[in-house]
């Protein structure tokens, strides 16, 4: 399994980004139900790992960060979910 996605917060972030073209920091915090400080650290890890792209912009002269899931992140998420499903299937069989 992907160590980076073993964190519930990072998994929630990826799930939020999955069906979106881009999502602002505030919307991710809302969806993942985490504080800004906590989310910032998790997002930084995902960006550093190359799973998520970050774009910094200004809205009404206020800084805004937008995030999008890239192909690498999508593949990692799909593999991770498949492995979790396989783990559950194994448990049912045994």
């Amino acid at each position: 399994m992907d160590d980076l996605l073993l964190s519930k917060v990072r998994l929630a972030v990826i799930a939020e980004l999955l069906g979106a073209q881009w999502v602002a920091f505030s919307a991710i915090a809302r969806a993942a139900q985490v504080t800004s400080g906590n989310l910032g650290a998790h997002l930084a890890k995902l960006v550093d790992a190359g799973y998520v792209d970050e774009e910094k912009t200004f809205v009404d002269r206020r800084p805004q960060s937008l995030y999008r899931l890239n192909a690498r992140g999508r593949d990692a998420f799909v593999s991770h979910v498949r492995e979790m499903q396989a783990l559950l299937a194994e448990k049912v069989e045994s």
Partner: protein
Amino acid sequence: MQPTEAREHLDLVERIIAGNERGLCVVGDFFLVWGIVGALLDGLAQLVVDARLGPQWLWLAVVFLAFGIVYSIVRARALRRRTDRMSVLQHEYLNIIWLSIGITVVAQIGGYAIFSQWASAALWTLSATIVSLYVGLHGNRAGVIGGVILMVSLVCANFMHDVAGFVLAAGMLFGYAGFGLIAMLSRD
């Protein structure tokens, strides 16, 4: 990871994905503005055809069109600023709006005469252009090239009355059939 933990994580993912399945934000004012612009253009054309207004009034059409375009640009920028989440579906929807409006404006300016004589053929070229460029928007270079060929054929046919049908045919052949052939060969 324990199976119970995996179950929890999968439930979390399902919950977030289900929460994101919101409907499409239609942006009704786009329809309102372009409906009014379209009605004004059609009404103006009818008044000129009926000779109730002189042909010099046709410059108003440019004003109407410019208004629609400027409004759309300003509104789209505002929409982007106010939205904190752009779904893939919403993004696609806005793409198709821009593509349709953009191609129609080019067709109107560059193909003003073609539709009066070659409407049936030109309409097919127009819809083929929208389809090809839509595919091109998703990173398909052949789609972009095909769409540009179709668009150019429409504009060229406008100025080449004697061979307009052949020009449109060439556009469909190289721009659309050619694009399809490339897609088949690349097993897309």
